């Protein structure tokens, strides 16, 4: 028995791994998922967007009144503030910038997450701007996610109506030198992205009425599988433009980013497939691809733990001999 195991253990382990995933995927029973505080951070930020947006307008108006009373105030600063308030009043439900920065290698973990965030933003009625980061291969993935989420609003409870490109959301597509592009967004978003994904002039789109530069964005969500991807948005979005930033990432890199959550530089963090499943549970997504895959995760993790125990037993048996 032991010799059979020693001669064929690789094939047996592969087959059992395959079987445990397969069984997990055919399971139809509902799995109860409790959302962690990190996931709830992003959910709450999106859910509270109209409230925080209104609070921001009130704060800016107060600042404007103070400037108007001040005789030494710079007229240019007053004009900038006036224009910003006017734009902010158009975006009643807030503006979300979603940055998709991963390639097909991480699709299994990050697509359900991006999709759930898109659906949530659409349901809240927020204007959604989507760009892609360093990897050009993110573009076709992002395009599919956005168009699927815009078309199918019945997969969440409560549902939302059809969302139109250029009116409710805008997909900018890929631009080389992402960091410079992000910084340019601080001056003018339409200058950074003169055309959208399909080559249409962005400045003439209805969605851009009320959106000029980074100051008009209320929340940044970056879904990234690359080392340094979330850091870049912490640098640009949080440190430079002082906007709340949340990040979704593969489980491999999640442990590196919890310190940013603790320091408040990230307002939410979705970690791998589990983070995606937690977000799906919060948003009430059905069918929920990440939640469905959690059964497979459960079985394969149990199998991995069993293998560790078996490996240790074998080690002790060998050392006794």
């Amino acid at each position, binding site marked *: 028995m032991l010799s059979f195991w020693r001669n064929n253990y*690789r*094939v047996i382990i592969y087959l059992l791994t*395959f079987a445990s*995933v*397969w069984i997990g*995927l055919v399971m139809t029973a509902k799995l109860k998922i409790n959302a962690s505080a990190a996931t709830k951070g992003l959910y709450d930020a999106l859910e509270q967007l109209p409230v925080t947006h209104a609070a921001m307008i009130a704060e800016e108006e107060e600042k404007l009144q103070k400037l108007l009373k001040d005789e030494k105030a710079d007229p240019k600063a007053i004009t900038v503030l*006036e*224009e910003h308030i*006017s734009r902010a*009043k*158009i975006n*009643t439900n807030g503006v979300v910038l979603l940055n998709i920065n991963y*390639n097909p*290698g*991480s699709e*299994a*973990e990050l697509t359900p997450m991006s999709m759930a965030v898109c659906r949530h933003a659409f349901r809240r009625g927020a204007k959604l701007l989507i760009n892609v980061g360093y990897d*050009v*291969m993110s*573009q076709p993935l992002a395009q599919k996610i956005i168009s699927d989420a815009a078309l199918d609003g019945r997969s969440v409870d409560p549902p939302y109506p059809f969302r139109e490109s250029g009116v409710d959301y805008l997909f900018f*597509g*890929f*631009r*080389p030198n992402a*960091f*410079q592009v992000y*910084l340019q967004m601080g001056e003018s978003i339409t200058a950074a992205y*003169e*055309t959208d994904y399909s*080559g249409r*002039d962005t*400045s*003439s789109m*209805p969605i851009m*009425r*009320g959106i000029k530069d980074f100051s008009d964005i209320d929340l940044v969500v970056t879904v990234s599988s690359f080392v340094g991807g979330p*850091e870049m948005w*912490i*640098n640009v979005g*949080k*440190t*430079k433009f002082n906007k709340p930033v949340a990040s979704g990432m*593969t*489980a*491999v890199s*999640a*442990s590196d980013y919890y*310190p940013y959550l*603790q*320091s*408040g530089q990230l307002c939410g963090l979705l*970690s*791998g*497939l*589990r983070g995606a499943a937690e977000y799906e549970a919060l948003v009430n997504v059905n069918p929920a691809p990440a939640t469905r*895959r959690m059964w*497979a*995760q459960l079985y394969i*993790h149990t199998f*991995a733990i069993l293998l560790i125990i078996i490996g240790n037993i074998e080690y002790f048996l060998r050392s006794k001999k």
Partner: protein
Amino acid sequence: MGPDTFIDLIGVWIAALLTLGVYSSLIKDTFISKLTEAVFVGVSFGMSIVFTYYNGIKPKIEEPLVRYYQNLHVDYATVTNAVTRTVEKIADAKTLPVESAVEEELTEEISSRAFDTNRFFAVLDSALYKQTLKLQSTNEVAVSLQSAFASSEVDLKDKATVMGALNEYFTTYKTVPTSRHFWVLYIFFSVILGLMFITRFFPKHAWLSRFPMAYTIGIGVGMGTPLSFQSQIMQQVQASFIPMLVRNPNGIDWIATAGNLSLVIGTLTVLYYFFFSFKKEDAASRGATKIGIAYLMIGFGASFAFTIMARVSLLIGRINFLQDEWIQGTYEFFKYLN
């Protein structure tokens, strides 16, 4: 989820066979596993080149240069006539298209303000000096002006003032501004700098590739360092200055206190472990080092567990694809056909 057309079905089958081809390397490296790896790398690079051309070179270099050349040779009177006609039409319409109650309120507010010539000129500049605007096309000029005025805060209700300001604008207007000529020089400089990377293929001239590399690294470091220093050092250090005793309305919050204490001890002992300037022979030093190692091990363990979870997720994704789109999708496709 499954394929809708026959072409989709072929795509799904190719993807499924390539997936199995990659996994076949688990048993043994074969011609098929090598082929699938080569296809993966080749397709990725091929697609990257095409996407980079359409999203980078075409909109940022090719189209603006073509427009620049065309706009240099455009008839000045045709452009000014088109602009005059469009601005007249917008002024005649009195109000801009309004999409919501909030926008209506804003439009009223804007109407109450005095006509601002500088803002009016700024809107015209933003509409007429777009890098990709084709000035020969009166339609494109009209659309650009309409959208610029629609999103601006300039009220055009007093037509006489507007047309007067427009005539004033035309006294200095050029179809191609002087800054655009410098911009073209900058584009050529950038293209030459980019092409210098290719000299790496020619050992004799490979030294030239150091210039674009130095330029790129210099800009990256220059722009990134202040931000990185602030967010990855200053704010992280600031976040580690936390109260050792956390109080809540009911007294002491023991869980939060333990968490904060653990964070401070962990930070200090791990930093101490990496401090190699003197020998750590006394009991206190050895103890602190051991605690630091324990913290590091917990950290590595968490990272490793997360790594396993991530890799397993990828496997689940692939098996999910094989089950839903390949097997079930193919079955449903032919069932629907019959």
